């Protein structure tokens, strides 16, 4: 493309920064990483073509510092910025500042972000376009209005922060008696989190699924949808496992959801990649929830079932290219599942577990993709989100994708820090997950169940034998006697062998 970017700055860290660096490399565009003081040795710094320090560990002073990031862009000669997800990715002010600085923001316009950023203003635009909403109010409410609306839609209802996201400022209210205290606490939580205490009310949907549709719109008026993602496996409103397609969406429902998603995007003049989130009730009615105006963490499952590369397409679209295909060209094939690997301890209240990864063995082979931001020996800093990596499995069918993911989890080994790898094994072997019976409360219910201890039976004995062998041989940390090319049959520092025959002597 003649007017492709000369250089792209990635205003992010971790796996997504590495993901975008790889796309830039593949497109022949030099990439610029930025890093805080604790990220000097981070993987994204090592993978990028250029890297510049932008300040202290605290995100506010570095990854959220618009001025510093734009100064680096200018200094390095970057003519575009990819924001990744999180940090500044949904900050309309940043998009605006990029435009002012003559640097292309790879994402939607600030105007479209503003419309979608406030849930109530988004609702106005959508309602006019006939997008289905959960019954409730379409704007921030006074307490008196809240009482009226809640009576009208019927309890239970949800209070939500108008400027919110990520579960903050949300309250479930079962009866009018609870409404006042919930209204107040939601409002004050929203104020603290989003600088706006506005709350609104929605009918509470029992055991809903969270299903979202990926859209892609160019700057010439074309917009397509790329199938859906089922993201119902959540803990504290944070997605844990995502998959595509959804076990509950058939061709007809996909068409309706997709067309609705395109309508949502077009009503806001949306461009680039975005995601339209829906709540789906048990009768498979879907209701618009919100639009995420950025690349999602879980975009790889869509890439695997469509065969497309969303980051390449984001960059092409931002550079002014037309979408290189039409809706009818989009073919979905197979099934993809993603696990978000976090540095947290699922056996101890999901406490975060930063620290040094002393060993790291990652899975590979057929149908396995890993988008990682870490490496063996890296010290995961305590200053940011605990996501280490995304493990994605693709296979012809959902059953095979589950089995493949289990196989990959078996191969995965991380030591030095705690991770949630064992949690995925438990979820993936749960009968409800296997049956595709998912809803946003499923994981919490599963965690409340007693885990079956049966599985460990055999391996505890093996662990004891291994521990004894390690103890017998000092520590087994060094793999000592291997002299370069010499010892072809002596790769290991030591070998032991006890045969029953030996005992008979």
């Amino acid at each position, binding site marked *: 493309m003649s007017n492709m970017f000369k250089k792209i700055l990635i205003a992010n860290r971790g796996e997504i920064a590495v993901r975008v660096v790889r796309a830039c490399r593949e497109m022949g565009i030099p990439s610029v990483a930025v890093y805080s003081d604790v990220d000097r040795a981070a993987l994204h710094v090592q993978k990028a073509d250029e890297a510049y320090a932008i300040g202290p560990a605290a995100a506010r002073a570095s990854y959220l510092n618009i001025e510093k990031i734009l100064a680096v862009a200018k200094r390095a000669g970057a003519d575009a910025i990819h924001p990744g997800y999180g940090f500044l990715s949904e900050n309309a002010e940043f998009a605006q500042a990029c435009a002012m600085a003559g640097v292309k923001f790879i994402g939607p316009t600030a105007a479209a972000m503003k419309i979608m950023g406030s849930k109530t203003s988004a609702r106005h635009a959508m309602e006019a376009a006939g997008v289905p909403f959960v019954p409730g109010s379409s704007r921030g409410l006074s307490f008196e209005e809240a009482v009226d609306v809640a009576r009208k839609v019927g309890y239970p209802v949800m209070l939500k922060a108008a400027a919110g996201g990520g579960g903050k400022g949300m309250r479930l209210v079962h009866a009018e008696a609870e409404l006042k205290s919930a209204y107040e606490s939601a409002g004050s939580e929203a104020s603290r989190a989003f600088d706006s205490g506005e709350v609104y009310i929605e009918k509470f949907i029992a055991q809903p699924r969270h299903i979202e549709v990926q859209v892609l719109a160019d700057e010439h008026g074309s917009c397509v949808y790329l199938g859906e993602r089922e993201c119902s496996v959540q803990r504290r409103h944070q997605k844990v496992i995502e998959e595509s397609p959804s076990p509950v969406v058939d061709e007809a429902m996909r068409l309706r959801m997709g067309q609705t998603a395109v309508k949502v995007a077009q009503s806001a003049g949306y461009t680039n990649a975005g995601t339209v989130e829906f709540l789906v009730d048990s009768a498979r009615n879907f209701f618009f929830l919100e639009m995420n105006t950025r690349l999602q963490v879980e975009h790889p499952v869509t890439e695997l079932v469509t065969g497309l590369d969303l980051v390449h397409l984001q960059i092409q679209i931002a550079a002014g290219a037309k979408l290189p295909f039409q809706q009818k060209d989009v073919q979905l094939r197979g099934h993809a599942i993603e696990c978000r690997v976090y540095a*947290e*301890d*699922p*056996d*101890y209240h999901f*406490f*975060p577990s*930063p*620290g040094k990864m*002393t*060993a790291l*063995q990652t899975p590979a082979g057929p149908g396995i993709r890993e988008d990682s931001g870490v490496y063996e020996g890296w010290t995961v800093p*305590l*200053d*940011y*989100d*605990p996501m280490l990596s995304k493990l994605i499995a693709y296979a012809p069918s959902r059953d095979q994708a589950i089995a493949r993911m289990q196989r990959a*989890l*078996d*191969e*995965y*080994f991380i*030591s*030095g820090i705690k991770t949630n*790898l*064992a949690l995925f*094994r438990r979820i993936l072997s749960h009968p409800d997950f296997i049956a595709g019976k998912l809803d946003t409360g499923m994981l919490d219910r599963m965690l409340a169940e007693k885990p079956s*201890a049966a*599985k*460990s039976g055999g*391996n*505890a*004995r*093996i*662990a*004891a*034998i*291994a*521990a*004894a*062998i*390690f*103890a*017998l041989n000092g520590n*087994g*940390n*060094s*793999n000592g006697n291997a002299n370069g090319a010499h010892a072809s049959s002596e*790769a*290991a*520092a*030591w*070998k*032991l*062998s*006890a*045969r*029953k025959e*030996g*005992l008979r002597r």
Partner: protein
Amino acid sequence: MTFEITVTSAAGAAENFRVELTRGKDGNVTECRVNGEALALDAALTQPGVLSLLIEGRSYRVGRAHSAEGMQIGISGETFEVDVRDPRSLRARKRAGAGTEGPKKITAPMPGKVVRVLAPEGTRVEAGQGVIVIEAMKMQNELKSPKAGVVKKINSAEGATVNAGDALAVIE
């Protein structure tokens, strides 16, 4: 050599094993018994901290790590805490007293920053009451008192950075 080993699964189930390994003159293990049962064993250290075990023909790839809590052993995605004791040694069981007698420490379960001291020195607390809040990776975690008593000592000020295992408070 004989080892008494306690293996605790992630779910908290603990099991004890007695593992006997006998070395021959060449240093090789000639005999392996687990709880008295003889097993055909073949072990190779394939990488630092990674063991390939063949036990009665079954293959296991075992990873080993150390943390503040001791040794962990990972086998195909499961992680176990192991506590290895050589019964001939005089060293007592390392397990800390588990009751509620005497002063108890509250230790940091992870590195982080102290964001709030909920119960300053001298405060009377119930078992399970929050004492200190630490934050890491955008998550706040309340550390609770292990027993009813009085906060004898707070070792960390608000804003301080702490490491995993640091004793942050003492309850007496």
